[in-house]
């Protein structure tokens, strides 16, 4: 009985000690604690301001990469603080969200949304189901799957195949050969891009020119796909062909100055700090 009482009392004392150490109230408790806190962060998620060294105090005497990292975090913390101060939203001092319930509820919401959208679309707009295929006759409309429309569109570039005077108005190659060569050209250009630009930019604003090139490529992928289904598009054929090659250029011409202008913004300054941390090119 007596031993038990003693043990209980000891445990209580130890618990008290640990509580004091966690609170960080006194110097002796922190020094004599069973778990020394070498990182100076304390146990709470958000350390109280009065007992923990600030980022500045912690990193001030460091050099090199650690100092750059510190500068980045200090800068982003300041920006975040300023933004929070002028924002009208509720202030929440959290460093991350727990998986349950926050992330799970969010993922359930997203999954429910997309499942519901699939059900809604399949119910409201049931897909066209044609008569069973007749293997002995070619259908009027032949199309690959939608993600290959761009390649199919390149096969329809016959109007660009020049009639050469030197050949007496004949074409150097058949339209179908020309379309296949167009595929080679497009794939070749795409294969060359990584050799021209390494792609070290993390945001389009960092390299507006290459971002504009990318925009024109995406737009061209779309317009050439539209060209492949030109029989379904209520636009005259020659106009559609012109738009196929004009719209990517127009999109690039718009994207470049827009991205240039966006470099003035807040995020760009923050990112410029950030990619000083990267290894040199």
């Amino acid at each position, binding site marked *: 009985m007596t031993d038990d009482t003693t043990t209980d009392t000891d445990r209580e004392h130890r618990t008290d000690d640990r509580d004091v150490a966690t609170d960080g109230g006194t110097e002796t408790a922190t020094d004599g604690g069973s778990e020394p806190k070498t990182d100076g962060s304390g146990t709470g998620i958000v350390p109280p301001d009065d007992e923990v060294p600030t980022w500045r105090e912690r990193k001030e005497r460091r050099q090199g990469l650690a100092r750059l990292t510190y500068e980045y975090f200090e800068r982003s913390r300041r920006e975040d603080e300023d933004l929070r101060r002028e924002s009208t939203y509720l202030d929440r001092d959290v460093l991350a969200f727990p998986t349950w319930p926050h992330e799970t509820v969010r993922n359930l919401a997203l999954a429910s949304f997309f499942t519901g959208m699939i059900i809604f679309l399949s119910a*409201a*707009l049931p897909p*066209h189901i*044609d008569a069973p295929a007749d293997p002995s006759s070619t259908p*009027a*409309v032949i199309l690959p799957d939608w993600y290959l429309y761009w390649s199919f569109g390149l096969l329809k570039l016959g109007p660009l195949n020049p009639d050469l005077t030197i050949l007496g108005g004949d074409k150097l190659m058949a339209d179908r050969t020309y379309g296949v060569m167009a595929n080679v050209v497009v794939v070749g250009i795409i294969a060359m891009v990584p050799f021209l630009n390494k792609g070290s930019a993390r945001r389009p604003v960092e390299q507006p020119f290459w971002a504009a090139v990318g925009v024109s490529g995406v737009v061209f992928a779309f317009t050439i796909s539209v060209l492949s289904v030109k*029989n*379904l598009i*209520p636009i005259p054929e020659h106009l559609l062909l012109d738009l196929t090659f004009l719209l990517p250029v127009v999109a690039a011409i718009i994207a470049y100055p827009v991205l240039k202008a966006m470099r003035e913004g807040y995020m760009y300054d923050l990112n410029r700090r950030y990619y000083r941390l990267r290894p040199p090119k």
Partner: protein
Amino acid sequence: MADEFIKGLGILTGAGLGWMVLAGWYNTPEFEGAQLTAPNPGTVGAFGEPALLLKEGLFWFAILGALAFWILIPAAQQARERLAE
């Protein structure tokens, strides 16, 4: 500003979805032809008339709503800020 963007995007996508469904019902006579953009059918019945009206309304709501939240309201706010200075 992010609020105005998501309001405009929500209107554009939500109303656009409604327009797409109704246009798929009433303005897509066949697969191999103009889809969503065919002229309105002649006789649509008692449910079709308000549906076509709703389709027109959703179409302009999608365009004008996005235009309002992305261009008109931010422009008005900036103009007010400039005037206040």
